């Protein structure tokens, strides 16, 4: 019987492993629907550990949207840690869902959300544990259709051997369209087998089926052409965009795990998309245009979510939350509503802007002001013009000083290094900045008890951004710049002891770079790494740079390319990029012009407040900017939870 629970076979294994709670399901707001009542069964996977995957908003939204359909059933599955994976193989227990403990193999679809490319080896591990053939071409109509989604799916070529389709853009509506196609095909008795099903899926807007496209390469190693192998699939696949977020107030019933997770709070997405135009930011490029939820829509999601979860903290999530057209009023009215309830509100890391301090003050009106995070990203004014995240050093110091003066004790500053055109001097300016921030902060707060944490990582160029042509800095360059930065910060101990430096070495970034801008040939590297024991590549204790470089050298050699070819090589204007047939809406010419502007340190303004500069998204996708203000306001209500203080 399919859909049967594997729990009785799993339970004896759980007694022998670490953190068994992550595999038992039963989270608040989780659901297990009867198998036979649904026509279409979805297994949704986040390809990382449960503690990272459970809070993922995308997966939570699709889980709820699908389960609301009477004819569909959705359950969740996560990457299994090696301790349990070993026991599962020894005891013949396949990859299972945590909801109904059903075999992933029994589902019609396996949807995998890739927030980062470092999850690719975990996909292979899960397919193998599930008993699903690794290569899409080896699957028949009894196997689940493996669907990739998430931001990394905008270049799924490196995993195109292993997935059946990739979905571009927002998932809320396209999962329904896919469900309809699968449901009809099953009801008709599965005509034409798997190939027919995939060809029907390829005709759904936003769905890319790699096997219907052939890639050829030139003698220089670059792509010569990408051609359709069938006439009934689109030449270019476009992305999906959900308009009117108020109509999609998901998750309505956020999942609350028993186990500890990386986000012990509820999140409400206040808008989607960003047009600030930061040139390094793939999320800001591929999620355009900006679509705001209204203040009243946000207010009811916060209220309903708190009632449904019992969380005591709400994060107001987006790519740049302070840019919401009603954020000032929203912060004030939410703070009024939850004053004295022990419910706290927070904004994720923000742009360097005095207004953000005002907002954070409002949200922490009567709470502890521990840490505030800003993301200047670039160390010098020059490099900040290159990445189009302009803020003067003076404004930056003034903003951070204001934070200290308002009682914030710790400020965290996010930076990247290895940005295009960057030199040691650009990175060394981070040290000057931190020193100045501490000096000014001590003076403004009248206390030596102020801290500044500099958090820095290597930049990885991403597809569909103006930096998609850029040469990635080598691991040696990154490590060298981090070393000189550390020395500069520690030069004056009297100030340096108030500055913390958190950094990641350059090696994982190089592999992420290979996977981000790789083409189909990189699939062999991924498979080889997994066969050599690679998984959980996002975890330093599992990541092995040597395993990746060895695999890359050996598997890419027959093609005449190598790791450097994919990472530290600058692309030329007319090179066919592996993702050119996948359409994020952005014109390639506009991206190229923006790349050239970046090299001459020219800025571009935000199209929410200045005239359209023709990035291409709105006309291509038939979408438009949706922003307020709406003029509405939140009515006071009796908030849930906690006694008045």
């Amino acid at each position, binding site marked *: 019987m399919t859909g049967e629970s594997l*729990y009785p076979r799993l339970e*004896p294994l*759980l*007694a*022998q492993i670490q*953190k*068994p*709670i992550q*595999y*038992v*399901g*039963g989270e*608040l707001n989780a659901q297990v629907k009867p198998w036979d009542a649904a026509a279409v069964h979805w297994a949704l996977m986040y390809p990382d550990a449960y503690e990272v995957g459970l809070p993922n908003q995308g997966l939570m939204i699709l889980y709820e949207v699908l389960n609301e359909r009477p004819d569909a059933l959705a359950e969740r599955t996560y990457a299994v840690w090696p301790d349990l994976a070993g026991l599962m193989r020894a005891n013949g227990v396949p990859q299972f869902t945590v909801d109904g403990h059903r075999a992933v193999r029994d589902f019609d679809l396996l949807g995998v959300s890739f927030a980062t490319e470092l999850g690719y080896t975990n996909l292979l591990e899960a397919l193998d544990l599930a008993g699903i053939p690794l290569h899409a071409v080896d699957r028949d109509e009894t196997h689940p259709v493996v669907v990739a989604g998430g931001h990394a799916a905008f270049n799924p070529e490196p995993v195109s051997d292993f997935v059946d389709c990739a979905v571009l853009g927002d998932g809320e509506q396209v999962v329904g369209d896919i469900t309809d196609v699968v449901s009809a095909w099953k009801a008709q008795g599965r005509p034409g087998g798997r190939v027919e099903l995939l060809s029907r899926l390829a005709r759904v807007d936003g769905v890319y089926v790699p096997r219907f496209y052939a890639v050829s390469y030139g003698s220089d190693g670059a792509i010569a052409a990408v051609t359709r192998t069938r006439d009934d699939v689109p030449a270019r696949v476009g992305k999906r965009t959900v308009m009117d977020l108020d109509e999609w107030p998901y998750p309505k019933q956020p999942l*609350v795990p*028993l*186990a*500890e997770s990386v986000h*012990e709070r509820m999140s409400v997405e206040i808008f989607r998309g960003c047009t600030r135009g930061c040139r390094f930011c793939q999320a800001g490029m591929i999620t355009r245009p900006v679509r705001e939820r209204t203040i009243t829509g946000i207010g009811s999601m916060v209220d309903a979510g708190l*009632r449904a*979860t*019992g*969380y*005591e903290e709400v994060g107001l999530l987006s790519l740049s939350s302070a840019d919401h057209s009603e954020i000032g009023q929203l912060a004030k009215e939410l703070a009024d509503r939850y004053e*004295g309830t*022990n419910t706290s509100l927070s904004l994720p890391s923000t742009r360097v802007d005095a207004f953000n301090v005002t907002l954070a003050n409002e949200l922490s009106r*009567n*709470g*502890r*002001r521990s840490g505030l995070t800003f993301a200047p990203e670039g160390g010098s004014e020059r490099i900040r013009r290159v990445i189009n995240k302009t803020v003067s050093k003076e404004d930056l110091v003034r903003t951070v000083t204001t934070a200290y003066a308002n*009682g914030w004790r710790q400020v965290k500053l996010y930076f990247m290094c290895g940005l295009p055109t960057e030199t040691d001097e650009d990175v060394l300016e981070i040290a000057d900045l931190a020193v100045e921030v501490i000096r000014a902060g001590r003076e403004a707060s*009248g206390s030596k008890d102020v801290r500044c944490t500099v958090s820095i990582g290597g930049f990885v160029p991403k597809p569909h951004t103006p930096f998609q042509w850029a040469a990635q800095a080598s691991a040696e360059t990154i490590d060298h710049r981090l070393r000189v930065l550390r020395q500069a910060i520690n030069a004056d101990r009297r100030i340096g002891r108030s500055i913390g430096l958190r950094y990641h070495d350059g090696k994982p970034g190089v592999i992420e770079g290979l996977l981000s801008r790789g083409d189909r040939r990189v699939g062999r590297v991924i498979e080889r790494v997994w066969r050599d024991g690679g998984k959980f590549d996002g975890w330093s204790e599992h990541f092995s740079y040597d395993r990746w470089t060895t695999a890359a050298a050996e598997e890419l050699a027959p093609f005449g390319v190598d790791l450097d070819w994919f990472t530290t090589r600058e692309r030329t204007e007319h090179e066919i990029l592996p993702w050119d047939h996948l359409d994020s809406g952005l014109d390639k010419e506009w991206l190229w012009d923006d790349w050239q502007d970046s090299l001459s340190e020219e800025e571009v303004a935000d199209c929410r407040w200045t005239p359209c500069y023709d990035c291409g998204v709105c006309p291509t996708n038939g979408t438009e900017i949706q922003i307020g203000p709406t003029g509405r306001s939140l009515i006071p209500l009796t908030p*849930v*939870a*906690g*006694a*008045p*203080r």
Partner: protein
Amino acid sequence: MARQPDGPPPPPTVQKLRIRYAKRGRLRFASHRDLARTLERALRRAQVPMAFSAGFSPHPKISYLGAAPTGAASEAEYVEIGLSDRREPEAVRAALDAALPADIAVLECVEAAEGTGSLADRIDSSVWRVELPGVTLAELAPAVAAFLERDVVEVAKRTKNGLRDVDARAAVASASAAEEAGCAILDMVVRQVTPAVRPDDVLAALAAVADLRPPLPPRAVRAAQGRLDDSGTVADPFGPDRAARTRCQGEHAAV
């Protein structure tokens, strides 16, 4: 100057409630920290008027008593909560039970009676029932007998400070073997000593003295906790609270 919270201090605790709950089924794999987090969120959803500590980071007043180990089920876990507003104990029990996952059952809730001492002082032992799938009574009974005959049975135990030898025998007040549906059952009363002796440690001791090695992972359930008296009985820790309440009701009746 460090900021201080504006406004008056939080309201004081006006009522203490003592709660017994069970963790069953899949949630036997929840750790103490998992349960604490879950309980705090359930108290918020159930709108129990919790008392909070003062300061910028107020915590609800909850005291946890020694939790059953991860992987063990329990019918007798105890927690004490402080309320800022009085509530009927039974109403709190029902609301909390409804707000918690099905595998956590809130079994009893009593008001702490003044002057009857702390709950912790009324608990020094656990009653354990360990199912041993794949083991027969004929295998278990002699192993238990051999264990009880010894004065000391040291087993290696992983503690915060690394591996350490612990005497499993001294902590076991009584132990007996039984059988149900072909599965051997180990019933025992274990004193709560430091470092803790848990069912796993006793099973390790049975392996050491009689080479008893269950083919499948055993399933332990804590059936009760309380004070062990001279007759070998474990007393209900809510006894004094109930007695005080009965006495109090009796006085009202007399008036």
